[in-house]
């Protein structure tokens, strides 16, 4: 030992050669650096806020806002509190996001599938649409839609009425776009949005339920921690569900009625609930039919008939029970009835849908391309025509590749909806900016806004992950 000690490195030199030392030292340095940076910034913030005489807190949210919101579904008035203004902004944002995501998916999948069409013209149109829209900034497109297209619509006196003057289903003028719609009150609409939200949130509970029920959690400390975590998630979601479904505006500091209260207060609202509930027997029947077809080798006729009957009933409810109203053109050029979309909302949704749709089209195209050519050929060899081959064989397999990037595209749409500010639509971001300008409280407003966007994105992301689990390869 002593003889070789001249070659051995001892003391601090040995420490310097030890990888573990460097790993710990590096992390300590990082922590110290971050702590110093944050405390420096925080002390500056404190000093700056003390100088301007603002102390941190959210109590200002109870003060009257005093500004009007152009369009709102929450019967907001200027003398209401800031917290109500912000909730109105959130509902407005959700309105854009939900409609935008649905329409962008439709546009994107259509364009993506069209790029595989054997019609050269359709293929070219799809490619040109994607190449054009993706390479132009979204904000520019929004401004174009708003100022050049929707603002350029004719005066109400000679508005565009589709399909014909006598049969007015859609009217376009620079006062707004009128669409046929069920005769819902604002409360019913809000209730419907809340019900969708409640379903999305409720979906998250399933994962925790499954994890608890499956019994795959180990009986050690970590397993119990996971169990407690899952129970906590379920309890939290139950509380949120209570607010979304049963809260009453007067008691709960919230300015909307819970979905159940709102929907069950009118006949049409009840029909919405019935429609949404009918999804359950449809899903069960569909599963049963698949089971009968695949496992038992039956024709699945009974189930198909059941499905058709349910679909007809649903369609009847949709058409007749919701009290559809088409816009009516008055002598003066004005329009009554139907759903009025403001120019701001129309421009925002149109711009977002076409922009995001182009990205989704590329995702769908890449997904379909990822399915090996043999699958196409096999499907054709079985006698399926190209439409059926796409629908039954290729597209389901492509979904595995499509859904993860689709998730981030949906989140992008949600985040991009904050560009509403540029076209003057009062979404969450624009309401928050006004609140900040009036109160001079950037930190609090920013925290509220950031928290809301994070929650919305989390909601989208978790739900898409569940969908992703459904379409993944089930491997043994």
């Amino acid at each position, binding site marked *: 030992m002593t003889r070789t000690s001249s070659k051995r490195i001892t003391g601090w030199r040995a420490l310097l050669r030890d990888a573990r030392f460097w790993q710990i030292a590096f*992390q300590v340095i990082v922590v110290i650096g971050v702590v110093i940076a944050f405390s420096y910034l925080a002390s500056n*913030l404190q000093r*700056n806020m003390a100088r301007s005489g603002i102390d941190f807190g959210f109590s200002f949210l109870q003060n009257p806002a005093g500004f009007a919101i152009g369009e709102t579904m929450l019967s907001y008035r200027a003398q209401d509190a800031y917290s109500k203004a912000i909730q109105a902004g959130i509902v407005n944002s959700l309105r854009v996001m939900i409609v935008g995501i649905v329409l962008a998916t439709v546009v994107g999948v259509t364009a993506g599938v069209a790029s595989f069409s054997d*019609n050269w013209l359709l293929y070219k*149109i799809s490619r040109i649409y994607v190449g054009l829209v993706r390479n132009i*900034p979204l904000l520019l497109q929004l401004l174009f839609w708003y100022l050049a297209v929707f603002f350029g619509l004719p005066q109400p006196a000679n508005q565009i009425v589709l399909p014909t003057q006598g049969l007015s289903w859609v009217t376009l003028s620079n006062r707004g776009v009128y669409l046929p719609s069920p005769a819902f009150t604002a409360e019913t609409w809000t209730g419907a949005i809340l019900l969708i939200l409640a379903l999305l949130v409720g979906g998250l509970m399933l994962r925790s339920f499954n994890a608890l029920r499956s019994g795959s959690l180990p009986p050690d400390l970590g397993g119990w921690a996971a169990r407690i975590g899952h129970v906590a998630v379920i309890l939290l979601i139950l509380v949120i569900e209570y607010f979304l479904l049963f809260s009453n505006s007067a008691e709960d500091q919230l300015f909307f009625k819970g979905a159940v209260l709102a929907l069950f207060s009118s006949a049409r609202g009840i029909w919405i609930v019935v429609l949404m509930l009918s999804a359950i027997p449809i899903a069960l029947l569909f599963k049963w039919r698949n089971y009968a077809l695949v496992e038992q080798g039956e024709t699945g006729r009974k189930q198909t008939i059941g499905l058709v009957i349910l679909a007809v009933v649903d369609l009847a409810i949709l058409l007749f029970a919701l009290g559809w109203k088409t816009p009516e053109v008055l002598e003066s050029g004005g329009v009554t009835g139907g759903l009025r979309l403001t120019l701001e909302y129309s421009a925002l949704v149109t711009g977002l849908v076409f922009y995001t749709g182009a990205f989704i089209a590329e995702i769908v195209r890449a997904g379909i391309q990822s399915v090996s050519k043999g699958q196409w050929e096999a499907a054709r060899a079985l006698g399926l025509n190209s439409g059926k081959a796409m629908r039954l064989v290729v597209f389901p397999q492509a979904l595995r590749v499509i859904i993860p990037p689709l998730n981030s595209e949906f989140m992008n749409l949600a985040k991009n909806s*904050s560009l509403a500010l540029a076209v003057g639509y009062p979404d969450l971001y624009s309401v928050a900016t006004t609140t900040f300008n009036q109160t001079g409280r950037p930190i609090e407003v920013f925290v509220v806004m950031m928290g809301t966007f994070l929650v919305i994105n989390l909601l989208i992301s978790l739900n898409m992950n569940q969908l992703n689990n459904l379409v993944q390869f089930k491997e043994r």
Partner: protein
Amino acid sequence: MTTISSRPADTKPPQNQTSPLTWVRKNLFNNIFNSILTIVLVIIIGLALRGLVLWIFQGAEWAVVTNNVSLFMTGLYPRDLYWRAWLMLGIVVALAGFTWGVVGRNLGSLFSRNVLMGLALAALLIMLLPITRPNAPRLIAYEALTVAMAWLGQQAGRKFSGLGMKLSIGWFASYFVLLYLLAGGDVRASVLYFVGMIAVSAIAGWQLAARVSLLPKLGLFEKILLFLVGFIATYLVLWYGSWLLGVEVGLDRASTSKWGGLMLTLLLAITGIALCFPVGLLMALGRRSQLPIVRGLSIAYIELIRGVPLISILFMGQVMIPLFLPEGTRPDRIVRAIVGLTIFSSAYLAENVRAGLQSIPRGQTEAAQSLGLNTPLTMSLIVLPQALKVAIPAIVGQFISLFQDTTLLGIVGLVELLGITQSILANPSYLGDYAEGYAFIAAIYWVFCYAMTYGSRRLETSLNNELR
């Protein structure tokens, strides 16, 4: 298929002799549904094209564009400083031409028929388009400069090897030269001088260490010490020397509030891209790190930033950065904008790079480690080059969206290309000319974004050494 050639030597694939008629039948009218679709589409496209052409040549009032070209390009940049903008363009064009020549040094002739036709077309457009016609002589001279520099670059590239590396240093240096040309002011207070001082000092220190260590045998520690001595001494001399001399040398100052238009957009985009790449790379490495604290911080950064809209981060940059700094320090608006853009883009870039890193099999790392490379060397020599190659399309995609995102700075008050367009369109004499103005800048954005996509595709094919 049906004809089997009697001569086995004839192995060429049968040539697809398609007449236009068979092509049309095959691609447009191959069944009833497609035929109907084609007819409907032709009618719709025909009507749309007719409307578009009529609008371009009759309906549209292009005065809003042709009268304001200089505003679109440079914003409110002072008129008597336009020569500096032209000089900047000249430098970029010359460097680009030279680079083109060096890259194409192994081609027989740089100017193939297609390139020549492209050049001729560009010259023709410059002379014919109303927006470029007033500056046609200068633009054509620049085109000639590009061609001349390309020829020069080809000759130089053939003569000197390793010019590529020096060229990238040239681009790097040109950024600061251009920045100085843009801003002007006292040379001694400029970024250009600062970077120049550091470069000169580093060279001096390195030379000192290299020269002195030739004489006796010095250890690494002493060498580093010598380098530091040389560096600091030169730096101090340059710094104090320049102030002691007391001569104020420099161009006229152009305040940042005068920067605008396409010029500002490009400045923001290039600076943002240059800054977000290293930050994003570090964050991606941090997220893949074995060290829990580093990984946790990286994840927190990436996920927080990716969860909020860009506009709110820019808002934070404009409103909240001053709040977090000591009293009185208020960075320039453009600096704050670039900080916001960089923070946002680097989080997305980190995810793109991480995807690339994940695609590299573990065996690569293990092989590198078994060769005795430590972690930084394994990363920089083995893993990153492969990972970045995989990630090129995603990274360029992120750069493109950063370029597009500069438009959002128009909302927070910078007059970049979209911002200046907004203020031009607010001019009552161009009332309602929205479509014209937006169409013009949309074309500009489209050209830049498409060029980036095209470049990334070329880079991808040239780096793809798997299936050659």
